[in-house]
């Protein structure tokens, strides 16, 4: 935004600008009481949202169900690892690229740092997937098939984790499905520039994403998922028998 309006070479229009400003001040300004009321409400909501986020971070969502032990142990391991990392030289781990011996460690650490399956957790997991894709892109740019394979293997692992994290929550599932659909498109676009040796890894990642989308569809639309696909071959199934409208008398 700018405070001084450039009149674009229209010299002598100060009067118009002055009048417009006067008009805005007089007729287009909220009352001080309204501003105070709005501000109080907004800041209160901001404080409430921050408090809710803190609660979410500290609680274990019940819908994780049988996977809760996994997330609990991940958190404990994450805390332990975080302490260790202060002592260890963590910079090298976080800068590890796919194909590097430390890449697996980096991936593991990053997965431990993903929060639980609340809304923030899903966002973090999707971010992690995007990081893997970025790693894959970088590997292709460097023409490094091993690095690409490493990034895509990590990507597939993260897809599985994200699917578990989404649980049965329709909103998270929809968010994940939308993101995975984009990832499939990105992976297909990467195939063109990938080293020949890495195409198989890309195909595998695409298959994993597509399979996850299918699993999400099955969760969200179970009836549709179990409906057999329409048959294109002639159907020789005999027509259903006509049932008598009245049961036979004994």
């Amino acid at each position, binding site marked *: *935004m*700018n*405070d001084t*309006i*450039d*009149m*674009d070479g*229209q*010299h*002598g*229009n*100060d*009067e*118009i*600008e002055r*009048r*417009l*400003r*006067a*008009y*805005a*001040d*007089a*007729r*287009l*300004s*909220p*009352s001080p009481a*309204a*501003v105070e*009321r*709005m*501000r109080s*409400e*907004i*800041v*209160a*909501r*901001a*404080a409430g*949202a*921050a408090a809710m*986020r*803190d609660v979410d971070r500290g609680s274990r969502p019940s819908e994780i169900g049988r996977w809760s032990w996994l997330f609990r142990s991940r958190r404990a391991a994450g805390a332990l690892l975080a302490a260790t990392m202060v002592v260890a030289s963590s910079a090298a781990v976080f800068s590890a690229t796919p194909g590097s011996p430390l890449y697996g460690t980096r991936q593991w650490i990053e997965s431990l740092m993903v929060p639980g399956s609340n809304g*923030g957790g899903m*966002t973090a997991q999707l971010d992690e997937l995007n990081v893997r894709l970025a790693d894959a892109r970088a590997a292709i740019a460097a023409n490094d098939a091993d690095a690409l394979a490493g990034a895509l293997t990590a990507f597939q692992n993260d897809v599985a984790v994200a699917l578990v994290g989404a649980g049965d929550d329709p909103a998270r599932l929809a968010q994940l499905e939308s993101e995975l659909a984009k990832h499939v498109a990105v992976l297909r676009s990467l195939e063109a520039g990938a080293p020949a040796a890495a195409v198989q890894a890309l195909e595998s990642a695409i298959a994993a994403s597509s399979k996850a989308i299918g699993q999400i569809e099955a969760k969200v639309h179970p009836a549709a998922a179990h409906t057999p696909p329409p048959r294109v071959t002639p159907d020789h199934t005999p027509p259903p028998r006509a049932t008598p409208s009245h049961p036979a008398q004994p």
Partner: protein
Amino acid sequence: MDGETLDRLVAEAQGGDPEAFGRIFDAYHASIYRFIVSRVGRPSDAEDLTQVVFVKALEALPRYEARGVPFGGWLFRLARNTVIDHIRTRRDHVDLEATADRASEDDAPETLAILRNDLDAMAEALRSLTPDQHEVIVLRFFAGLSPREAAELMGRQEGTIRGLQFRAIAALRQRLGIRTDDHKQTG
């Protein structure tokens, strides 16, 4: 507010600092309100919608990333969409001239009368503009957006915005009887 300060406040607000979001509100509420009230007319609606815009911004803030979209532009896009949604559902707008004058409470009665006449004349002149010209005036002069920001918000080229502004100013000038050479009102 400079960009660096704004970036810091956005980051702090994203981190859960309510007062940082309050300062963002302080920086933008007037321009957002002016943009909204210019479109919907009724001040009470504009106050409600301004609050809605900031609530939406608060809810969307964790997902906001300053990748090519400045925060102000992002906020005005929320405001524009909020106004469009409101206009879709409510058609009973009031004219801006029906709104109360706020900047004139301490003036003498005769000054008030002159000021009110000037304001009424401006309201009438603004009504004579085309919708695009009117929106450019609102965004540039009332909301304080740059030509580039207004262009992004309206989905137009910057040159188009400058052209619309040029013609809008000329139309207002003619309508208000303001000459370009000495700025004197002739009518």
